[in-house]
């Protein structure tokens, strides 16, 4: 039994840790978050992610990371963090003409 599970409270002591799964659909694209799963360790998390999330040819590469290792913004900070961007339309680079050769901006 590893340190993390030993220190966990009674309720979660016998449960496997949760892992977040990121799948790259094809070479050149980013890994995208696609869900989560329970697994006893990293090696099996990769295997189970392969079975749960790539069985219909969704992926060519898989990342997993322990969910408790992800640092997330606090939902209560949503107003403070994200709303001020609402009226800053000038931050979009759309106020000058692009050469015709440039696609997908």
């Amino acid at each position: 039994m590893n340190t993390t599970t030993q220190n966990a409270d009674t309720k979660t002591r016998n449960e496997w840790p949760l892992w977040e799964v990121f799948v790259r659909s094809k070479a050149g694209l980013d890994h995208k978050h696609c869900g989560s799963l329970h697994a006893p360790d990293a090696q099996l998390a990769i295997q189970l992610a392969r079975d749960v999330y790539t069985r219909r040819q969704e992926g060519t590469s898989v990342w997993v990371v322990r969910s408790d290792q992800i640092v997330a913004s606090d939902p209560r900070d949503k107003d403070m963090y994200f709303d001020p961007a609402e009226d800053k339309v000038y931050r979009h680079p759309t106020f000058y003409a692009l050469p015709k050769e440039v696609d997908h901006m």
Partner: protein
Amino acid sequence: MSASTLQPSIQLSRAGEVTYLLRLADTCLFMGQRLSEWCGHAPILEEDIAMANIALDLIGQARALYAHAGEVEGRGHDEDQLAFLREERDYFNLTIAELPRGDFAFTMVRNAMVCTWLKLMWERLQDSSDAELAGIAGKALKEARYHQQHAADWVVRLADGTDESRRRLDAALPTLWIYTREFFDADEVDELAESTGLGPRASDLRDAWLAEFGALLDEAQLPMPKDSAFRSEGRRGRHSEHMGFMLTELQYLQRAYPGGAW
């Protein structure tokens, strides 16, 4: 045909090439059948999906082999007839594949044993003189490598898990071990396959299997079980008492509704 008339069994060719293909196909089919029994019953959802995936891989391998065996046999039998319309003694799987699924430890030890054997078989069949069989092997090998790794990883974890997982593993290993002797029990069908370049003799896989499975036992710190005088003979058509029950369930639909499709 009225619904009360059951579909009769096919008359199977005894040609060595056909038997050789069916031995492999039947082992894949029953491994898939037993694994599929876990669907909805696995310890966790993730493993439920993993085992169902592996079961479908194995049944897919069996399908490819049956279709090919039907062509080699030349009696017009298709994959469904070969899978579902034979008498018990006309099936030639490794006996270990037909044993009831047992608990999770039992299933994982069996998978580790059989999937290692299958992987070694597919590796060699890539060089078969039968181009169709070589093609099937090339595709199946990728799947088999994963099946072996999946089972082996679980064996290591169950060995090093809880008292209960260790106890169940310790019970499964010797129970299954006595069926592994059959893995390497070559006969005239194997000799024919070897001489025509169709594929290896079962006995040719022995050293490689013992090396790979032995390495897994070492990693899991499990002792190699002792050999016994017991000899299973599913590959020769003589099966365990479990076979009839499984065939009854497996064959029911095709027997009752001939050619049934959906």
